[in-house]
C-alpha cells in the first residue's frame, strides 16, 4: 500500500496556506508533519481525510481497499475529542464503533486506553487527558490502515504518551501508516519529517 501526494495546494479563507507539497508513504511508515502555527498542518491532515478540497495537486492511494475513497480508509484524530458530555464513556465509544464499523470490542479498547474503570462515568466528568484517551480508544477500536493524528499527545501525561507510542509502533508493524502533526517528537524514531512553512 502506498499513499502519494503530488503538488498539493491548500487555500483557506482566500489565503494560500501551503503549496507544492509532495510526499510518499508506504505501509509500515510514519510521517511527522511539523511547522509553526498556521502553517497548515491540520489543513493537510483534513485534506487527506477528505474534509478540505484540494485547490491543486493529486492524492493517490495504491493498494488500498478497491472502490473505496481515501477518506474511508483513514482514521482522523483531530484537535477536538468528539465526546458527548451527557453520554457515558462506554456509550460514547459504542456509538463510534457502531457508526464507523470497528471490529475491536469496547472493553478491549477501553482497557488499552486505561479507561476501563471509568466506563460508566458521564464524559462530562472527565479531565482533558481522559477525554483524549477516550478519543485514542476510538482510534484503537476502529481498525483503519491509515492514521491521521493531529497533535495526538496533547493533554496526555508521560505514561499515556508512552502507551500511545507503543500502540503506534504496533500499528506500523502490522503494515499501517501514520501521519501525525505535532510540534515535537511523538515517540516514533523512524518517522520521516515533512516541514510546512
Amino acid at each position, binding site marked *: 500500500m502506498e499513499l502519494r501526494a503530488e503538488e498539493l495546494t491548500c487555500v483557506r479563507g482566500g489565503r494560500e496556506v501551503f503549496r507544492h507539497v509532495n510526499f510518499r508513504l508506504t505501509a509500515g511508515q510514519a510521517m511527522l508533519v511539523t511547522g509553526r502555527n498556521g502553517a497548515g498542518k491540520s489543513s493537510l491532515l483534513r485534506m487527506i481525510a477528505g474534509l478540505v478540497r484540494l485547490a491543486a495537486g493529486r492524492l493517490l492511494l495504491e493498494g488500498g481497499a478497491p472502490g473505496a475513497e481515501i477518506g474511508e480508509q*483513514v482514521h*482522523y484524530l*483531530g484537535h*477536538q*475529542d468528539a465526546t458527548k458530555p*451527557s453520554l457515558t464513556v462506554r*456509550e460514547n465509544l459504542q456509538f*463510534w464503533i457502531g457508526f464507523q464499523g470497528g471490529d475491536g470490542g469496547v472493553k478491549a479498547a477501553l482497557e488499552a486506553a486505561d479507561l476501563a474503570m471509568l466506563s460508566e462515568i458521564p464524559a462530562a466528568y472527565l479531565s482533558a487527558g481522559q477525554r483524549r484517551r477516550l478519543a485514542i480508544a476510538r482510534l484503537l477500536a476502529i481498525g483503519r490502515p491509515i492514521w491521521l493524528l493531529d497533535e495526538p499527545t496533547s493533554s496526555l501525561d508521560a505514561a499515556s504518551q508512552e502507551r500511545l507510542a507503543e500502540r503506534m509502533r504496533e500499528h506500523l508493524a502490522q503494515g499501517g501508516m501514520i501521519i501525525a502533526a505535532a510540534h515535537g517528537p511523538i515517540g516514533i524514531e523512524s518517522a520521516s519529517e515533512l516541514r510546512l512553512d
Partner: protein
Amino acid sequence: MGALFALLVRDMRLAVRVGGGAIMGALFFLVVVSVMPFAIGPDLALLARIGPAVLWLGALLASLLALDRLFATDYEDGSLDLLMIGETQLELIVATKAIAHWLTTGLPLVLIAPLLALMLNVELRAVPVVMLTLAVGTPALTFIGLVGAALAVALRRGGLLLAVLVLPLAIPVLIFGVAATNAAIAEATPFSPPFTILCALTLVSFVFGPVAAAAALRHGLE
C-alpha cells in the same frame, strides 16, 4: 444501516438527557400559544376562529428554534468532521438526524396540541384532526429547516439567521396546514385538497431537505 441506527439512537439519547432539548420544544410551544391570547383578547369566538392558526404558528416557531442545535453541537465538538468522513452518505446521515430531531421535538408538539387546542376553545371533535395535520406537517417543518440549520452552522451564525432563511420556505406548509385544519373544523370547505397537498409537501421535503442540507454542509465547511 447499522450505522444510521446507531446515529438515530445516539441523537435521541442526547436529546432526552440533560441539556438535550427534548422537552424544551414542547415547553416553548406551550408558552407561545398560552401567551398569544393575551395579545388577542379573551374573546372566545375570535380565539376559536383563529385557534388553528395560533397552533400552527406556535409549532412553526418551536420547530425552528429547536433546529438551531441540530448541527451546532456536533460541529463544536468535532463529531461533525467524523460523521462526514465515514462511508455512510452524508444525505442519509442528515436525514437520520432530522428523524431523531422530529421524534424528540416535533412529536411532543403533536402530543400536547390537544391541551392547547382546548385552551383556545377549539371544538373537541376537531382536536384529532388538528393533531393529524400537525403530525403530517411538523416533519415538513423539520426537513425544510434542515438546510437553514446547515447553512447557519457553515457560516457560524446563530438561530436568527436560521429563522430568516427558513420562514419563507415554510410558508406553503403553513398555508396548507392551517387550511386543512380549518376545513376540518368548519366543514365549509373540503378537507382533502389541502390535506393531500400538505402530505405531498412533506414527502417532497423528505428528499430535498437532506440533499440541500448535505450540499450546504459540504460546501460551507470545507
